[in-house]
């Protein structure tokens, strides 16, 4: 990364779930207040706010921070579909690295229970959405292609959910904390063939908050245990009107490559990854895109146990989007909360032993001609 180095000095979130009695403000104020309290900074020392959300409506960030004594400073609201929270962090990190501010509050929040359930409402101005495209169908077509091209079966897809639920069962912040079997996953309600309900992230509500500061402020705070940001990358994807290889999502390949270059690190250096497992097949495809294995070897990597505890890189120790939940604009920030807890040794019974380097990855969107409309990748290193 160019410019001054940037730290995440505190991180907080609420358990994900259906919080029907809470507004966007009600969801976000508790983690914002907790992150502020743990940062060692007063609310009046926050110089900028970046709030990621997809469905919060006008001035979501202002509706939140006015409740915690933050006023007058710039508040920027960021929509980037599922990448909203991570894009808010990206904006904060680069503003601090450029020297525009010394401190920032990052919020990711969304409330999907307002839609009652079912598939995410997409933008009907889009041609493919008007033809009936929904997010599960997009990933289901990717899954069908994966089963066709790879030496894999639906059991392998189901194993992704089994692993996610096993990790999530040890995370008190996860929406789903019950372990499941391959048979239970495959017997659950069909959503978009070959994907079943337990291979799809739940709809729910959540909020996460991060306090981000420059190196100088981190020194002044007494060098608390923190995440040093080694890479912060955002891509929007390459428009194609014709053929697209759905097993080679170029937006994630490019984002990962740039992130590793920025960090001066590679996939072998990662102790943990939080990646965008919105649907079971996505985790397998992203093993390859993030370089955790060679293209074509993701099924073997999952089967080998290399991406769970005891393996080379624990993927989605939080339970990921499949178990922890996926309130879209909150997820990118919530992934960083998990990285913060893991790298500062506060992850309890799901602690990845001696985790030092983490990568977070979140994509966003379903619109015609793009693999996804956004992809954010961050790499963090433990600092203390």
């Amino acid at each position, binding site marked *: 990364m160019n410019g001054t180095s940037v730290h995440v000095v505190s991180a907080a979130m609420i358990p994900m779930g259906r919080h029907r009695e809470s507004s966007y403000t009600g969801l976000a104020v508790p983690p914002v207040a907790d992150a502020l309290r743990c940062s060692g900074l007063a609310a009046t020392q926050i110089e900028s706010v970046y709030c990621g959300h997809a469905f919060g409506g006008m001035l979501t960030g202002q509706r939140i921070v006015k409740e915690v004594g933050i006023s007058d400073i710039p508040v920027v609201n960021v929509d980037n579909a599922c990448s909203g929270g991570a894009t808010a962090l990206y904006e904060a990190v680069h503003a601090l690295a450029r020297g525009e501010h010394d401190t920032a509050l990052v919020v990711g929040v969304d409330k999907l229970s307002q839609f009652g359930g*079912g598939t995410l409402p997409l933008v009907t101005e889009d*041609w*493919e959405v008007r*033809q009936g495209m929904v997010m599960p169908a997009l990933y*289901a077509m990717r899954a*069908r292609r994966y089963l066709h091209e790879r030496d894999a079966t639906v059991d392998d897809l189901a194993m992704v959910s089994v692993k996610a639920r096993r990790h999530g069962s040890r995370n008190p912040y996860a929406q789903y904390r019950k372990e499941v079997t391959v048979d239970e996953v495959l017997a659950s309600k069909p959503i978009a*063939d*070959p994907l079943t309900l337990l291979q799809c992230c739940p709809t729910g509500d959540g909020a996460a908050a991060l306090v981000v500061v420059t190196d100088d402020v981190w020194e002044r705070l007494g060098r608390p245990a923190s995440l040093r940001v080694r890479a912060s990358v955002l891509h929007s994807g390459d428009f194609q009107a014709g053929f697209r290889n759905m097993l080679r999502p170029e937006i994630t390949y490019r984002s990962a490559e740039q992130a590793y270059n920025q960090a001066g690190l590679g996939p072998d250096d990662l102790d943990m990854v939080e990646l965008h497992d919105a649907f079971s097949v996505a985790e397998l495809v992203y093993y390859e895109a993030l370089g955790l294995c060679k293209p074509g070897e993701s099924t073997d990597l999952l089967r080998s146990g290399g991406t769970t505890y005891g393996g080379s890189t624990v993927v989605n120790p939080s339970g990921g989007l499949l178990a922890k939940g996926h309130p879209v604009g909150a997820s990118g920030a919530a992934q960083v909360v998990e990285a913060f807890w893991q790298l500062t040794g506060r992850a309890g019974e799901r602690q990845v032993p001696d985790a030092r380097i983490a990568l977070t990855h979140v994509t966003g969107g379903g619109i015609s001609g793009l693999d996804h409309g956004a992809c954010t990748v961050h790499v963090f290193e433990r600092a203390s």
Partner: protein
Amino acid sequence: MTHELLPLRDLVEPVVLSTAEDGTPRLVGSRCRHCDARAFPRRTVCFGCLGSDLEDMPLSTSGRLYSYSTVRVSASREVPYTLGYVDLPEGPRVLAHLAGELDGYTVDQRVRLQVAADGSWAFGPDTEVSA
């Protein structure tokens, strides 16, 4: 002198079908005369060069089914229905409804355009070619 900029009228449902000389209906996309970029459905501005010199491009009625899924939960319409990505030889990939048996398809099979009397269109199994 300035010229007036007008918005694209892209919410008007595009004409997607045309009739070939032999009377068979076909999907129609756009081809840019300047940079050859091709797209479906028709466009008024080229995504490749921003030019507006686009011509209608009738598309083959037979293509290859890249992948497909029967949707059983949807926010946007009655279920179930089957969607697929059909790659046409002229270049465009078309998101299409697949007709007939929900599970009667395989990846990479040939599919052919079917147009109903009411003008609705879908792709179905292509029985005319075995390749």
